[in-house]
Structure formats: C-alpha cells, structure tokens
C-alpha cells in the first residue's frame, strides 16, 4: 500500500480534508494511528508550555498540611430540613438580603443567617450551634460543594462562626458534632 506523505497528513489534520485521504485512513491502521498521534501532539502543542512553580512552594504546602487532616465523609448524617416557611423566605429573598434560618433538633439547636451573593457569587453564612451535651468540645463547620471542601473552621457551643466564601448554588453546610453526628444543611436558595 502506498501511504500518503507527511505533508499530506499535516494538511489533512489541519482540517483541509480530502476524500482520498479519508478513504486511505479507513483502510490503513498504521496511518490512522499516526494521524491520531499527530492530532494529539498538535492539541497538546496548541496549549503552550507548562510552567512549574518553585519547589519551595511544595515544601510550604507540606508543612501546612502536616498539621491538618482531610475532612471525612460524615459517619452518620442528619439532613436538616428547614421549615417550609424558611425555605420560601429564602427563595423569595433578594440577593444581598440576609435570611435567618433556625431549627431545633434532639440535643442540638442551630441558627444560620444566610446572605446570598449579589454579583460576585460570594456567600456569607453566620451561624451558631448550641448542644445540650459536650459543649466544651470543638465543633467542625464545613462548607462543601460536590466533592470540594471549600472551607473548614472550628467553633464551640454558642460561639458565632462566619463563612465568607465563593461558591455556586447547591452548597452544603456540614456541622460535625463532637459525638460523630453530622448535620447537613442544604443551600435553601437552590
């Protein structure tokens, strides 16, 4: 079989296809693999060079993560359902206008003031958690979206926490209690 030249293939992958070359490709596995490789190389070439950060940055990150631990998926989750009136209030609120949400659950009370973003997708969540038992132990508060932990902080019984974070709609606020229960609160504006 007579194979087309390199120059012909370059013209072919740049979009100026000719039916003869297309016919040849269908019948020739060798050329078909080479053309696929050329396409990949051209795609990879078009994005430009990768730039490496200074190695010292990696050392810096390692030293920061050494004292951290990944946020576990909740062992036992309790979905906090807002009252219907709360949700309606949230959904009809104007962006930038805070909405106060509060719920009482067995052994736990929580309140969150949610301010939906106006133009910058920046949410503001101010909340408090009260627990009947183990009030001296830390409570982890996590804002997550899909499989991203956007931010994490610690609070204590009755202390106010504030989260100011960029996120799309559909976030989840997780309250990881000291007794291993996790309260999951979904974006009421979604």
């Amino acid at each position, binding site marked *: 079989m007579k194979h087309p030249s*390199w120059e012909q293939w370059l013209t072919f992958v740049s979009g100026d296809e000719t039916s003869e070359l297309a016919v040849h490709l269908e019948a020739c596995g060798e050329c078909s*693999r*080479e053309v696929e*490789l*050329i396409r*990949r*190389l*051209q*795609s*990879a*070439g*078009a*994005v*430009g*060079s*990768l*730039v*490496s*950060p*200074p190695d010292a*940055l*990696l050392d*810096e*990150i*390692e030293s*920061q*993560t*050494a004292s*951290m631990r*990944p*946020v*576990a*998926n909740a062992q036992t989750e309790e979905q906090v359902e807002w009252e219907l009136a709360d949700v309606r209030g949230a959904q009809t609120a104007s962006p930038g206008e805070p909405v106060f949400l509060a719920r009482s659950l067995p052994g736990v009370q929580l309140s969150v003031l949610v301010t939906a973003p106006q133009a*910058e*997708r*920046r949410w503001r969540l101010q909340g408090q958690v009260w627990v009947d038992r183990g009030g001296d132990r830390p409570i982890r508060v996590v804002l*997550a*979206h*899909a*499989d*991203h*932990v*956007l931010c*994490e902080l610690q609070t204590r019984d009755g202390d106010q926490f504030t989260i100011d*974070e*960029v*996120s*799309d709609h*559909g976030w989840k606020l997780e309250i990881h209690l000291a007794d291993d229960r996790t309260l999951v609160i979904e974006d009421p504006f979604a």
Partner: protein
Amino acid sequence: MSSAQDLNNSELVRRCLDGDDDAWRALMQRYKSLVYTMALRTGLDQEAAQEVFQLVWIELYRSLARIREPDALPGWLSIATRRLCYRHAMDRSRWVEGTFEEMVDPGEAPDAFVENLDLRRKLEETLDEVGEPCASLIRILFFHSPPLSYDEVARKTEMPRGTIGPLRSRCLTKLMKAMKATEVGS
C-alpha cells in the same frame, strides 16, 4: 515495592488518606505544573498565582476523603483553581482576564483546554522517557510556536535536512509505543 511516583491516582489518594507523605508529595509533583499554569493563564501575576496554587492544594488535601473519581483529578483541580483565582481577583477588586461566572461553576466538566493541558503534561513526561534525539525533535516539530519549516528545524537541531523525515517517523513510532505502555491519552 513501587515508588509513589509510579502509582496511579486512586492508589496515591488512598495512601494520602493513610498519612503517607511520599504519596502526597508525588500527587503534588504530578499536577503542580498543571495547576500553576492554569492559575497564570487566568491572568494572575506570579505572586498571586503562587498564593492560589497553595490554596488549591490545601483544598485538595481537605477534600481527599471525598474524591469520587481520582482519575478525573485534573478536572477537579481545574474547578478549584478557577474558583480560587476568581476569589482572589474579587478580594483585590482586580479585573482578571477570563473572570466569568463559569469560572466558579463547580459542576462544569473539564473543558478541552484542561484536557489538552493534561495531555501536554503526560506527553512531556513520556518524551522524557523516550529520550534524545526524539524528544527534542518532536518538541520542535509540534510544540514550537510558531511552527517551524523543515529548513528551520534542520538549523535548530543541526541535523541534515534529509534525515529529519526518516527520524521523525522512527520517533513517532517510538513515542506511540511509549504512550501505549503508559496509557497516555487513553
């Protein structure tokens, strides 16, 4: 026992969750240039890009237990990088080229740019394995901007013009075999 850098993403993530520092370092080494390049491409300056770079890895570390598809880590990193670049720009009231709403949409599938950037990363690694003179020739033929003519390639590589064509064919075959072995672009 294989070294951490040879392990796939799933195994690296699993080891990171077990507290393996080498696995964490290997994961950062694998994608450091991808994340840093993306941060620079959004228009951030070097200092800001370095700040975002650190935040992306902190976010990944916190999220490790929730990563559902370790093989799709480039897409995950792209979403985090774009969101954090956006936040950085907003914090400093700075206009950043490409600061659009989709930058912070965590539901977005990795776009063609990220896929090609990751393909470039894998190809660069594979070319290092393929060795010289093929690595240089392929880089000059495909990654040079603007593309060079054969005469210019001959001048740059100091190879006789007539040898470039046959060597190119041999090098592409060699690269193809190496890619198959490492499953690049599969």
